[in-house]
């Protein structure tokens, strides 16, 4: 079944939103995600470009500055809320895992 748009986030979506806690341009976002994940997450420029467009259309991020072709973005309140929800969902996953495997082998 198709995943509802942004109801759950892929790893790349998650890290892009995290990187945009601060105002950043796309090139910086790629660098920050690499650094944050120690290059574990591969964020291709095509994927980043498409995600920034989608996030902006959905109101999760906003454009803050445009100098020539360089544009900077930052999370909106809605984006922050969405990121927080996703974090909580991950925490729930971890909690469930820990409870399920607690004290024994399955």
């Amino acid at each position, binding site marked *: 079944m198709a995943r509802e748009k942004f109801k759950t986030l892929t790893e*790349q979506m998650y890290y892009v939103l995290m990187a945009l806690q601060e105002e950043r341009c796309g090139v910086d976002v790629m660098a920050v995600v690499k650094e944050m994940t120690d290059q574990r997450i591969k964020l291709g420029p095509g994927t980043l470009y*498409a*995600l920034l467009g989608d996030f902006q259309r959905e109101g999760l991020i906003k454009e803050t500055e445009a100098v020539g*072709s360089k544009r900077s973005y930052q999370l909106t309140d809605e984006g922050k809320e969405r990121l927080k929800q996703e974090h909580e969902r991950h925490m729930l996953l971890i909690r469930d895992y820990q409870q399920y495997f607690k004290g024994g082998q399955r």
Partner: protein
Amino acid sequence: MRGKNVWTKRFYFSYKELDTLAEFLEDKAANGWEMTSLLGNTFGFRKTEPRQAKFSVEIVEADIDETQKQQFIEYCEADGWKHIFDAGKLQFFENENPDADPIHTDEEVKLDLVYRHCRGLSIGLNLSMVAIALLISGFLIWNLDYRDMYTSGIVVNIFVLITLAMMALYQCIEFCLWYRRSKQAVTMGKAPRYKQTKVARFLDIAIYIWATAAIWLDDVVDAFYSQSTVLIALVFFFIIGTAGFIFLYNLYQAKFNKDGKTHTGLFLLLGVAFVALMVWASYTFFMPASLSEDEGDVFLTVQELGETSTGTSEHWVVHEGSPLDRHESGSDRWGSKKVYYELYTARFDRFYDAIVEEGYLARDKVYEEVADKAFGADKVFLLGKAESLTMWLLLYDEKILYLETRGFDLTEKQKEMIGEKVKVEER
């Protein structure tokens, strides 16, 4: 076409086969050919040193502006991808590192992008085919009742319709299956397939050639004789003009272009001019002459009717797409005497509707049917008689004669002669 330092090669691809296209460029680079241009499906290459590199062909949204495109290119260049060619919606990149990470790392995002572009194209293509099919079927239905219409044959028309329907169906099924498989692959964490098999490519090309040939055989040839299908003829010449231009372009690039520059803008301009010239020339030199032809002898002359010698005579056969448009007409006059006629090959019911539309007859008026056996016609209507002008409409088995005489009244003998002429006339 291949020269020493430049090479133009056609490569058929669709938006969902971009990986195949990238591999094609990688193969060319490994053999020392660098891409320099793209016109339609024709790629231009320049000779360079052979190199191992990775290529990527990316779709950009149709509605993005130049700044947004530059932004995308900057992202890619920041990741090590060198922008090598801008072809509008398609952007070509090269990476010196053959093991570089791809530009798209989220298959779902890429699939969504490719899907949206392919869907738009697919809908457009299918709508075009349906429109052409409707156009052809319109002519087909219109002409079913008439044995002597411009069409070269119902079988060929049906063949064209089936071809178009098959093309539309093939496109839809192939696209839906591809998208379903790709979606499943993404769900399972695999990469969708953006490649096309040789069989599929062969089918694609074959079906287009088949359809083009079918359309050419039937309606485009007949379009020379049909004003109502002038548009099809113009499209035909447009295609011929385009093909001719691409051939000349390839010839120039392969044989005469020494500096390796492609001059794409200049050639596009020349191409538009060349195609426009072809269309204009074809319309000017071929069309009007074939819309109506002077076919020599006048069917019915004043002289034949025993009224002194012939003055001036004209006789035309008009080829078009309706019963009113596929007829022969003639006039002959001497002094104040005149015979004018239009001879149609059509069944009366459709003919009647058509001539009412044309204004010859009023639908709500009851015309006088006269019991005049002399013409030997099934029905004879006297459409009007005023001073020296008399107008008749004579219905025969599958022929209809509209007749005007001015300056004299037909004698019984003349009427019999007209009836005989219509019956033996098999033009």
